[in-house]
């Protein structure tokens, strides 16, 4: 491990240790925050009991579904929009403002239309995540070097072969950025939707535990979600690093 990595680990450990100490000595009221060790043990008990399994499956399944739909549909939409320059120019202002407006505010509207089913969550999740994938796809296709088109013709490649063998790999780093964002947005939208209004799911569990003053359960659930989100981000980040290291190292 590098020196910087070591320092970072020490800093994080010190922060957690300080929180632990503050909770143990009563400096922080246990009705506000419980000690990190207690969160961990509460989570362990909760996971071992199996009572959380259904909600974990539901929430992570929803996040997976939302992310997959956003990536596939966003990529297809991106390719289509890239092929229609006029539509694209008309859409550009929408793309530029999309993440500046709180699209999430439509979640209650979707509930009014579809009721408290899975549909509103999936729709709000996809609406949040898909645009990042569309923008990333457009960006990636824009950055495919023009010379690759000429190389394709020198090798007498057809349209599909050009797309699969040259354009797709050339745009891949940008597409991966889109995938990372889609995962992140999918996560945020699904949890937020569950938290605010939903019949089940981990977000709902947290809200319930908060309402019941059940801090052990609440902090266990929060810890679980934060750990899962951090793990997913770490995996995506390391994949990204591996691609980047061999593809762009030293390239101007």
């Amino acid at each position: 491990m590098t020196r910087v990595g070591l320092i970072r680990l020490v800093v994080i450990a010190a922060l957690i240790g300080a929180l632990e100490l503050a909770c143990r000595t009563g400096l922080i009221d246990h009705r506000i925050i419980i000690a990190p060790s207690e969160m961990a043990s509460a989570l362990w008990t909760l996971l071992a009991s199996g009572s959380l399994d259904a909600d974990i499956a539901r929430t992570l399944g929803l996040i997976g579904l939302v992310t997959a739909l956003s990536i596939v549909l966003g990529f297809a939409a991106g390719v289509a929009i890239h092929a229609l320059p006029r539509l694209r120019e008309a859409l550009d202002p929408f793309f530029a403002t999309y993440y500046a407006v709180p699209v999430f505010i439509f979640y209650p509207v979707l509930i009014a239309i579809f009721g408290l089913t899975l549909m509103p969550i999936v729709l709000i999740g996809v609406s949040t995540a898909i645009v990042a994938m569309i923008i990333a796809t457009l960006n990636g296709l824009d950055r495919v070097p023009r010379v690759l088109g000429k190389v394709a013709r020198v090798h007498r490649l057809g349209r599909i072969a050009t797309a699969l063998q040259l354009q797709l790999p050339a745009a891949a780093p940008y597409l991966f950025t889109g995938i990372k964002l889609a995962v992140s947005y999918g996560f945020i939208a699904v949890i937020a939707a569950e938290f605010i209004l939903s019949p089940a799911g981990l977000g709902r569990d947290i809200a319930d535990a908060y309402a019941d003053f059940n801090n052990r359960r609440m902090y266990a659930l929060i810890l679980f979600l934060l750990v899962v989100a951090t793990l997913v981000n770490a995996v995506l980040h390391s994949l990204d690093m591996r691609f980047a290291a061999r593809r762009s190292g030293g390239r101007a």
Partner: protein
Amino acid sequence: MNAAPVQRDVHAELKGVTRIYSAVPGAGAKLPVPALGPIDLDLVRGEFFAVVGPSGCGKSTFLEVLAGLQKPSAGSVSFEGKPVSGQVPEGIGVVFQEDASFPWLTVWDNVAFGLRRNGVAAPEMRRRVEDALAFMGLKDFARAFPSQLSGGMRQRVCIARTLVLQPRLILLDEPFGALDAQTRLLMGDEVLRLWRRTGATVLLITHALDEAAMLADRIGAMSARPGRFIEVIATGWPRERDSTIVGAAAFGEITGRLWERLRGESLKALGHSDVAALAAE
């Protein structure tokens, strides 16, 4: 000097070729822009032909029309007796000015790209790729990715990727434009070696007069846009030659002659209005 032997083996031929671009969007004026020609040229089988001219004169357009990447607006292009139009014929290889190596493939896979496309059997492919890598001095970098190489090495990868397909006409579009002067001289030696070994016809586009004078059997000096050949100079170099000929007296003469023809054109390309007066100084 414009020596045309009575019996020559014409490999590629351009007759009355012009290229006119329709108005570029956003450029204001809607007038069509003549970019090239008219051009008449015969490339003799096995010769090394260089094209020099001021920037923006249409050199690259010329190469792309010859390669079949662009259609001529008028006139005809033929390669090995067959007309070229809108498609790159088998037997022509092109190396571009921009870095066209595939960053997602190793050097080995970059070079093997065309052979894989053509369905060449594995043992044959391995033999040809290793051969091309060895010839271009890339043997030790077979497993490297282009991003780990210098600009000159990446351009070698592109040359190897072309060479491995055994093209009979190799078109080089300012392949060394982005390299420093010394590296360019050395890459010139590589190209001469390549030319001698493959026996292919080579057409090199360059803006460097010394590069053209050192490498080519014949040099076409191109005018400012729309590009036409204002003179074709035969150098008379022996087939066995390398970059040391930059010390020869004839090298200076050829370079001087080229500059004499191109100075006015270069000034025009720079946008000087009183070209005649400046050129006469």
